[in-house]
């Protein structure tokens, strides 16, 4: 089974947002793999391995559309255990979800993966678009916002637990398909592949993506990384989204600490008129 995982680099979400000349100031940014894409790599690895015997089946290919520096985030994914990487050269500012989906569609036509696993959203743009657009373009089924994933024994379909507004919906899609993952997909028993024993638990508590081992980091340096351009792929779409400006949200006025619950209730009733 061949799994393609598109990943995007994002400015470290733990760092404070700075704005300069009406745009996000990225001059001192430290770049990381988008959190949900790290989860997507983890999901792909769980889907293709036997976690107890350590054997792996098939291939996991990571791909990004981004500038030269974005190769670092591809290496991070290779260090986790992906086999091979493709970087399509593109400046972050010259892309929008439409262009990214068009480029990924071309990569997929060439690579012919059985499954595409990606983050449900990039935590910088927060657009939550690319996976669904890609599936629409390819005419493939989609299973978005996955909290649990089970690969059928015949590897022909997935049953995906999707977190929807009213609970959890279990959707079955035949492969090839596009899967986008939500937070809880990295919980200890969220991914089942009918290879790893069903009783297996990835870590404890809330789980999480695996760390790259030192051996993994060394191995990643030798793994193949191909480079392409958008024109190699025949993508000439210009972005349809123009950024006009960025601003900070208005700060909330400072609040107050109140001494006790009766005071709180009195203030909520009389001052805030909230009760």
């Amino acid at each position, binding site marked *: 089974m061949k799994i393609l995982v598109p990943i995007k680099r994002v400015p470290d979400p733990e760092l404070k947002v700075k704005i300069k000349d009406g745009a996000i100031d990225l001059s001192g940014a430290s770049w990381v793999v988008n959190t949900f894409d790290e989860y997507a790599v983890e999901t792909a690895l769980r889907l293709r391995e036997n976690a107890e015997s350590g054997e792996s089946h098939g291939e996991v290919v990571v791909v990004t559309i981004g500038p030269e520096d974005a190769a670092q985030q591809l290496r991070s994914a290779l260090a986790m255990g992906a086999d091979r990487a493709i970087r399509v050269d593109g400046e972050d500012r010259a892309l929008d979800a439409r262009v990214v989906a068009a480029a990924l569609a071309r990569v997929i036509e060439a690579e012919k993966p059985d499954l595409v696993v990606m983050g449900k959203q990039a935590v910088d743009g927060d657009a939550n678009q690319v996976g*669904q657009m890609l599936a*629409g373009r390819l005419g493939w089924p989609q299973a978005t916002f996955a909290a649990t994933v089970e690969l059928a024994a015949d590897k022909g379909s997935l049953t995906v637990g999707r977190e929807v507004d009213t609970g959890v919906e279990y959707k079955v899609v035949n492969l090839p398909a596009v899967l986008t993952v939500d937070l809880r997909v990295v919980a200890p028993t969220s991914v089942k592949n009918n290879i790893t024993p069903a009783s297996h638990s990835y870590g404890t508590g809330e789980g999480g993506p695996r760390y790259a081992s030192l051996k993994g980091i060394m191995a990643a340096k030798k793994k193949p990384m191909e480079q392409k351009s958008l024109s190699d792929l025949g993508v000439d779409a210009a972005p349809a989204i123009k950024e006009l400006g960025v601003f900070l949200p208005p700060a909330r006025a400072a609040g107050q600490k109140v001494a*006790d619950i009766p005071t709180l209730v009195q203030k909520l009733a009389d001052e805030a008129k909230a*009760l």
Partner: protein
Amino acid sequence: MGNVLAFCEFGDGALKASALSNLTFARAAAAAHGGEVIALLVGAGAAAAGPAAARYAGKVVTVEHGDLAAYLAETYAPVVARLAGDHGATVVTATATAVGKDLLPRVAALLDAGMASDISRLDGATQFTRPILAGNAYAQIEVTTPVICVTVRQSEFPQAEELGAAGEVVAADAGAVDALGARIDRVESQKSDRPELTSAKVVVSGGRGMQSGDNFKVLEELADLLGAAMGASRAATDAGMVPADWQVGQTGKIVAPNLYIAVAISGAIQHLAGMKGSKTIVAINKDPEAPIFQVADYGVVTTWEKAIPELVEEIKKLKASR
């Protein structure tokens, strides 16, 4: 000149609150595009809900078909895209619910449209403001494709008022329906009599400090006293204390009630992203340094074990005195 096709979710013969927010945006967009609002209802019960929807839109299009009974992006997207063409839509819109977020980008791909997600404001015919970076910044963007897809953030748009005269309702053909093999196996949900989280006037949320699902019962008692919806932090939902669909935040639901009561929640940026638009925020936390106090209008430094029973009693007293 162009029309606005508004995909509207409905249930029990009426539009959902989320759809009414979408129609508020749709009316403004239609005015900016010199066209009309067309409300689109797809799925089982669409025809029956048509007249109720027509109180809010000059034109309602309903589509029913055995294979469209339940929502699937694979079957709904082609219907929406085709009707957008048939009805001369330059804007196709939905609310950023789980369905809207799943559906609209797929529609955009079929229409080769650019898309603005989760917008908080309409700034011009093709210009929008939307939160980025977990709501830590807002971006103003322009979408330059002839047809634009938009999802709107429910908490930023009030519910549409009824129109003076009811609109017309027409049924449209489903066309060829192909699910590409996709199907819904089952849906697991917990029925609740509480208001919907995303449109509730009061929300009571609990975090990791609640320690167990059982302990949430005291919060539920408070919620029921206030007619509130229940919410939670990711830590509480991840730990399985409460259902995942209670999660408020960047990756959960976005809420902006009149009153938000955060109990034993630290106030991580991802949580704040989902609730800092609330009118009045109350924080109850035993740690005086918890970041939640920076956004709270009223904070009480104490444990929930002590605070919540007392809060319930005080509110009962207040109600009795009125």
